[in-house]
């Protein structure tokens, strides 16, 4: 039925140069993280990657990463949530009041806090989704309201300490399930003081899983003739990622093992990466952010989806609030102050677009780690908070400029 001949051709295998140019953002972020780590490893004379510091790094950034997962979805849907820092602080305060002052069992308190977070998200999402009030305004209001509520709840005081079990949420470690003998043998071999076999094992299994799923996806794409990453890149990327995971897990295993928080973070990241990339629900969020009107006319319930994005954000902010309170072992009225900015920055550094429809979970997590390493490295170096703020600001700006430049070049 065509009148003009087809000028389209089958996809040709791409050269390494073209591939790299097309995926500059993904690789750029990974290289930037590695470069920054190498830089600080040198300037802190090896302190950055000491087992205790790696553990600290994970604990310090856990709540940011947990919130970045929700923020990524909110931003991809074309909105923003400025209230997460306050909500996080408020939930911490709520937990403290319930557990410390009212003797509510901590498990029940955790459930109540998560539900409260969801309700807060629903209260804000309702106005954004069904009344079309700009999310910037609604959550700016939320930010003030929940900051005030935390103050009210805590009567301006710090409340703590929490029972041990609750603290374990953030500061606990998974105990080694393997016989102590194996750990001692390994420790002798590696010349370390101790080795947590579980941590090392989880690291190795995770590494294998990543390589295996990568190979499988590659084989499947090949079978469908989908444009694929050049082999050299695939190998290099996997070597770097596997090396990094095994290295970090080994370091952790010579300290206190697997932090509970790392498990929480890892599982949540996996769940949300799957949700955004592989499910109908996730796809619809991208469509909503990409073109709300077109999404609506394609039968997508855009209002409900926006609402759910905020409910989800609320629950994750609550989870982060619990971890934060458990880590500090006290709830303070200042908890979570200005933290929303770190979370939002992490998401944008991770490649999300301000106008919605673009961004990945993995990008947001790497973005959060990048900010975390910057914070941590500069603190160890003894750089003042003044310079730290400036450098972080410039890094955010540079990342977004890079995005825009990259996009304009692709035309």
């Amino acid at each position, binding site marked *: 039925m065509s009148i003009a001949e087809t000028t389209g051709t089958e996809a040709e295998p791409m050269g390494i140069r073209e591939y790299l140019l097309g995926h500059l953002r993904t690789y750029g972020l990974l290289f930037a993280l590695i470069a920054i780590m190498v830089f600080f490893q040198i300037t802190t004379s090896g302190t950055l990657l000491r087992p205790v510091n790696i553990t600290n790094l994970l604990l310090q950034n856990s709540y940011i990463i947990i919130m970045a997962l929700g923020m990524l979805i909110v931003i991809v849907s074309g909105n923003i949530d400025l209230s997460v820092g306050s909500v996080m602080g408020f939930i911490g305060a709520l937990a403290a009041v319930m557990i410390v002052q009212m003797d509510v069992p901590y498990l029940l308190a955790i459930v109540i806090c998560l539900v409260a977070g969801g309700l807060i998200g629903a209260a804000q999402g309702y106005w954004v989704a069904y009344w079309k009030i700009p999310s910037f305004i609604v959550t700016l209001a939320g930010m003030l309201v929940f900051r005030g509520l935390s103050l009210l709840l805590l009567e301006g005081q710090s409340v703590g300490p929490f029972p041990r079990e609750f603290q374990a949420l953030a500061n606990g470690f998974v105990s080694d399930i393997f016989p102590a003998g194996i750990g001692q043998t390994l420790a002798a071999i590696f010349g370390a003081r101790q080795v947590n076999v579980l941590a090392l094992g989880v690291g190795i299994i995770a590494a294998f899983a990543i390589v295996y799923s990568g190979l499988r996806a590659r084989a499947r794409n090949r079978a469908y003739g989908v*444009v694929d990453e050049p082999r050299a890149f695939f190998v290099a990327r996997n070597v770097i990622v596997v090396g990094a995971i095994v290295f970090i897990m080994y370091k952790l295993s010579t300290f206190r093992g697997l932090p509970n928080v790392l498990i929480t973070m890892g599982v949540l990241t996996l769940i949300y990466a799957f949700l955004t990339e592989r499910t109908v629900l996730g796809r619809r969020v991208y469509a909503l952010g990409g073109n709300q*009107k077109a*999404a609506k006319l394609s039968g997508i319930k855009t209002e409900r989806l926006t609402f759910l994005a905020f409910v989800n954000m609320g629950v994750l902010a609550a989870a982060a609030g619990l971890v934060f309170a458990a880590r500090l072992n006290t709830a303070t009225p200042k908890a979570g102050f200005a933290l929303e900015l770190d979370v939002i920055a992490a998401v944008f550094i991770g490649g999300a677009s301000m106008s919605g429809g673009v961004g990945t979970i993995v990008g947001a997590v790497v973005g959060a780690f990048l900010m975390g390493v910057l914070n941590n490295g500069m603190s160890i170096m003894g750089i003042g908070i003044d310079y730290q703020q400036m450098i972080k600001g410039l890094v955010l700006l540079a990342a977004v400029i890079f995005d825009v430049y990259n996009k304009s070049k692709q035309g």
Partner: protein
Amino acid sequence: MSALLEMRSITKTFPGVKALDEVNLTVREGEIHALVGENGAGKSTLMKVLSGVYPAGSYDGEIHYAGGLAEFRDIADSEKRGIIIIHQELALVPLLSIAENLFLGNEQASRGVIDWRGTFRRTEDLLRKVGLREAPTTLVDKLGVGKQQLVEIAKALSKEVRLLILDEPTAALSESDSQALLDLLLELKAQGVTSIIISHKLNEVRRVADTVTVIRDGSTVSTMDARTQEITEDAIVRDMVGRDMAHRYPARDRRAGDVLFAVKDWNVWHPEHADRQVIKSANFEVRAGEVVGIAGLMGSGRTELAMSIFGRSYGQNISGRVSIKGQEVDVSRVDRAIDAGLAYVTEDRKSLGLILEEPINRNVSLAHLQGVSKNGILNDNLETEVAERYRKAMNIRTPSVFQKVMNLSGGNQQKVVLSKWLFAEPEVLILDEPTRGIDVGAKFEIYGIINELSAMGKGVLMISSEMPELLGMCDRIYVMNEGALVGELTAEEASQERIMSLIVTE
């Protein structure tokens, strides 16, 4: 008559592509010169070279303008010499008034303080010239596209225009607005303004143009002079596509089955002004395998009718019944309308039909994600397969289905929208201006697709402002005016005159 503009052997290359190859264009003083060609033929690039968007030095060849060699550095430079281009996408600020828009960047001011009285007086003069009866303080937002177009022209006139370039000025206009605009062009010509008009509407080209230049694949194919020869649409089309096109509308077996889609007593009120009835008890039906047209002027309520049926996407207080295959169906939400077997291909594909930032495969699956997923989990490979299938069936010209939709031409974008809705497996497709802004070749392909749908027994309801298209494609045509269906014509009865007379007599 002397030449106002002579572009000699213009060659412009982009990395990897030769967009223009030795193009010659001569425009005489005081004429209307039509520039025609398929999308991507190089018309816009040529105009960008002329207006200085691509500055002198970035192309090969010479531009002679008003008796001298012209080397424009940028748009401001060419505007100073009286070359003004009005783009397809209008460049007006919606929330500013007509007067503010007219003098934007050229404010009537002394020492930075705007002289409002002078501004309004000059605005009134200019509006009179273009025949637009609106107050200078009216916000552009409140004007229809046709009137906005006139504001653009008034803006050009305010800048002492010598050569006016219009890029598809009537693409978004109704028949009567188009006529008014073309009349205005003829009037400006009488006042000595030379213009270049880029258009896909060949009947309009024939009506106003003194000279027609056809560009194909970046080269000048032919120049026809209306004063020395008869210019026929067939001749233009032949030069545009490079071969004879015997039939502008592909033939189809016309065989209507049972009533597939029926709408009864459909009433809709305006979404903001609850007292304004937009659709007045509309009744119509579409049979299986039938292509039914809705003709009418811009603003007659055709799009509003379609959108209000499709999941109440327009209006309030909607009443009436919709049935498919004799069964009354619930179309109160878009997802329900889709489930009931309806599809609506929007008039504005960029802002309502596609997610431009996303690739073809993700756009194709969007309205029917359950077709590429199981238990809510997507099957990427199936999605790719589906997109590939439609790429082949629809002849979507792209290197791969992972190409972002924004990189496709208008015709190919429209094919992606159609693919999206075909994948949702509807019984009835409502096509709103399915060939707007796409070139002759792609139009022909879209007509072919419509015919295939009808052969499959689907019902097609086609809304179009191009009457020849409705006459060429439809088995039956409803005529709409001011929110009511005022007449129904069979293919044999229908003609442009009869449609117009139904609209006018009502």
